[in-house]
């Protein structure tokens, strides 16, 4: 493996790893800040409304 290959591999792997870690951190901390669990549950217009 050449030095340029090593640099390219380190840069590619490093970039995607940092990006992934940052996204996971953002998802977890944003959920905690808003106090809402993030989910893909459907929106029910009448949810929470009095019967």
């Amino acid at each position, binding site marked *: *493996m050449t030095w340029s290959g090593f640099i390219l591999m380190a840069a590619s792997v490093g970039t995607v790893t940092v990006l992934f870690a940052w996204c996971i951190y953002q*998802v977890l901390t944003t959920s905690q800040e808003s106090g809402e669990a993030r989910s893909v549950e459907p929106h029910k217009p009448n949810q929470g409304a009095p019967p």
Partner: protein
Amino acid sequence: MAVAGSAVGLGNFLRFPGLAAQYGGGAFMLAYAISFLIIGLPIGWAEWAMGRHAGTRGYHSAPASFAIILRRPWAKYAGIIAVIVPVVIYLYYVFIESWCLGYAVKFWLGEVHLSTPAETEAMFKTMSGQAFDGAALAFSWDVALPWLLIVTALNFYLIIRGLSGGIEKMCNYGMPALILLALVVLARVLTLGAPDPARPHDSVANGLGYLWNPSKVQIVATSASSPPRDVVGTAALAEARQEVAASDGALKLQTMSPWRQLLNPALWLAAAGQICFSLAVGFGIIIVYASYLGEKDDVVLSGLTAASANEFCEVALGGLITVPAAVAFLGLASVAGQGTFGLGFTVLPLVFAKMPFGAFFGGAFFFMLFLAAITSSIAMLQPGVVFLEEALGVGKGTAVTLLAALTTAGCGLVVYFTGGQMKALDTLDFWAGTLLIFILATLQILIFSRHWGVKRGFDELHLGAAMRVPSIFQMIMRWISPVFMLLIFCLWVLKEILGFDLATFQTGGISGYVRDLAGPQASAPARLSVGMIILIALVFTCLTARSKAFKRAERGLQKTETPHLS
């Protein structure tokens, strides 16, 4: 997590390393990164925005999403492509998924004893039923059928459990398990060194070099038409120089710089195709999943997280496992030119068979592939289920039953016609898994940028978003992405349909996939496969035309009720 699960699949661990090695890692990675920025992220975000917009108005299927966004009668018919693509890809994807499960269990049970490439090939041919048409339908644990029944039952069990109760739960456990297994296998691969002292060039370092070195060095025969031979590593290069010097001019060393490689349009086509395939852009899945998000949900972050999870699995895990392991045990010559299945099912089993604790690591690797595959295949069913629910106005149970009947019949065709080159699988992959993906991805970015408008799209995208999409993406989504997609589509037609060699710009005749459909070389499995795609399209078109829900969407009216999900 569900979208990340749908995006992370077999392509990450098998297709990407093969392509990166074939096109010279450095140059390919540059084209790949550019494609990610101007195709993957923008079109992905466009799908997230359009899906969420339709979802907040009560619609979840792609035809309804297209109809409520465009408010044109033709829009719902264009949306049918986004249902056909995942349903048709599922038909053969679940077959491949069954091989992964079969290989994993057989490795873990210690039933895999391989010592030669011929034996691995025989095992793969038996599992996939390539001996003759119908061979895969034998009920034996060496053949795909029992594994296929298990994975089909599992897929539909998860679908019937619903998006939050089935798919999300599966992805919540499956994705971390997949990453953990991949890290275990990766740690083992990176510590292999050069397993055979007699062949010091066949090492993990040279495998990584083969994949990532920006410049390709090859030994080329000056007169004979034998294929070039890659040279990686200082010692191998010194030996290659001696070999060339001793050849009396019959051989020469050729170095291809990354810039020269980037002039090859086929490289761009491969990189863009991999980005679409890998990020599930143009699959019709993201638009459905996004429709279950509300206006307070952050689709910008969701889109970026799904894309980054996929890229992490692809570049940081897939890019470091498959090819280096194969080079370390089998040498460069065995890896060069291997396609997706070749690398995964005929080369790697031999690698694991030669590796200490190979039964465990082989089982772990194929179970990891199985997890990657099942999180994708369940995602492929969801667009079909919501389409049938909305088009027919039926409940989820009926929709799942209908889709199960349709996919079982379609999968039966794929599983029956396995003789020789698995013609049905190959044909469906070409026409639906490649052509329709390009068409759908292009259509979606055109709808977002031209019909919906980038400003309106960005307003939708930023609803509930903690981070804003950089404004340069407005220009990218308005101009660069559509033009790039159209250019890539034209190149694809030139290469894959009309048979142009994009490196030399010479025609090699009409593509075999076209010749399979008409003329003296027509193939019955290929015709039946394309006929099945057309039949599915016709059925979906009829259902779409009769649907009251889609007519409401076309008029911009809210849907009165949402489909049941869990």
